[in-house]
């Protein structure tokens, strides 16, 4: 027998998810690019994030904006995913990855400094990486604190450290 028939809730969830994806797909791409570095890993992480965002539709109560919610789910999934890496290496794939789900766009016309930024973000610790992504996408200290679950003052300290690291790297590269 096939699965149970789809309920109204399922179709409603699919509709909401479709709207979210149409409007905020870029967030998922950014998180995937910042946390996974090989094509196969990016496919895996993208699929995992998509599924978690889709599952999270039911839990969304509108207390935060949709981009904030999607960022929150995507970052949580990405950080959990990086901790699963050793399991992946032992051949225990949690998901059957659908090949070709994520495509890589041509870099024509793209500012090369975007890749530079990603390289610098990749050198940060997991939590600082999340803070950096949110900072660059214009989230306030308060929003970042709520998403990550730390105090605003702690966010301030982390951001100062990230800024110093980026400025230091920029200066170092300018000298050489």
């Amino acid at each position, binding site marked *: 027998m096939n*699965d*149970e028939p789809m309920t109204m809730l*399922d179709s409603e969830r*699919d509709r909401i*998810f479709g709207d979210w*994806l149409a409007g905020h*797909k*870029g967030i*998922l*791409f*950014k998180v995937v*690019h910042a946390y996974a570095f090989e094509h196969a890993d990016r496919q895996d992480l*993208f*699929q995992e994030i*998509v*599924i978690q965002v*889709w*599952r999270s539709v039911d*839990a969304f109560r509108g207390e935060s904006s949709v981009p904030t*919610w999607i960022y*929150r*789910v995507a*970052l*949580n999934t990405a*950080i*959990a995913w990086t*901790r699963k890496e050793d399991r992946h290496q032992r051949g225990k794939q949690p998901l*059957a990855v*659908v090949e*070709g*789900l*994520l*495509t*890589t*766009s041509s870099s024509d*016309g*793209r*500012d090369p*400094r*975007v890749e530079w*930024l990603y390289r610098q973000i990749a050198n940060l*610790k*997991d*939590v600082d990486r*999340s803070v950096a992504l949110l*900072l*660059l*996408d*214009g989230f306030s200290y308060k929003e970042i604190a*709520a*998403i*990550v*679950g*730390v105090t605003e003052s*702690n966010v301030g*300290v*982390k951001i100062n450290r990230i*800024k110093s690291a*980026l400025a230091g790297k*920029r200066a170092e590269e300018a000298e050489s």
Partner: protein
Amino acid sequence: MNLEDLMEVWRSQDASPLHGANDTLLRLALRREEAKLRAQRRRERWMTYFWSAGMVAGMAFFLAIMIYPDDDDVLTGWDYAIPIVGAAAALLWARAIYVRHRAQAVREQSFGESLRDQINRQLAQLDYRATRARLASLLGYALLPIVCAMAIILASWRINDRPFSDAGLLRPILFMIVWIALTVGADFWWQRRLVQRDLLPRKRRLEALLTELDAP
């Protein structure tokens, strides 16, 4: 280059994203996930129903045989009480599993959605899994099935018109005790191994992440 410049560079990728997604494959992945979720929920539900129904049906069968004896054996009130106690233990077991899972679900839902809450939720899940590696918890979990098994042995014994004073009764009881001890022992060993090899390292990584969150 100041932060404003960096943000402008960052935003430039919105017009020219690094990646794209195949919508057809995306839908396929979601349908697959949906089917997997439904199958998992259905399997868990039916397993509980199946085992409880099986136990209760078995006890009802024994009771029916006792109520409609085909000979003139005298059955006492204790003989009738045995399958009733067994069935009650089976129902209680199913109920205990449900309550335990429900309490854990409520506990997990009590966390929010921030990264810190997610980490704490995962720690709660790991702690829940780890309880199965404690011998006292495992024995507590096995207690009601032991009562059921004992009821089955005693009811079968009485249906075959054999008195409790018959020394032969010790054999199936001893067999059951050895069987349960082996099963519980093997499960305990397996769970301890799982905790040491998988859960504890995961827990340490989560705790390190919490420390990283709090670090200035």
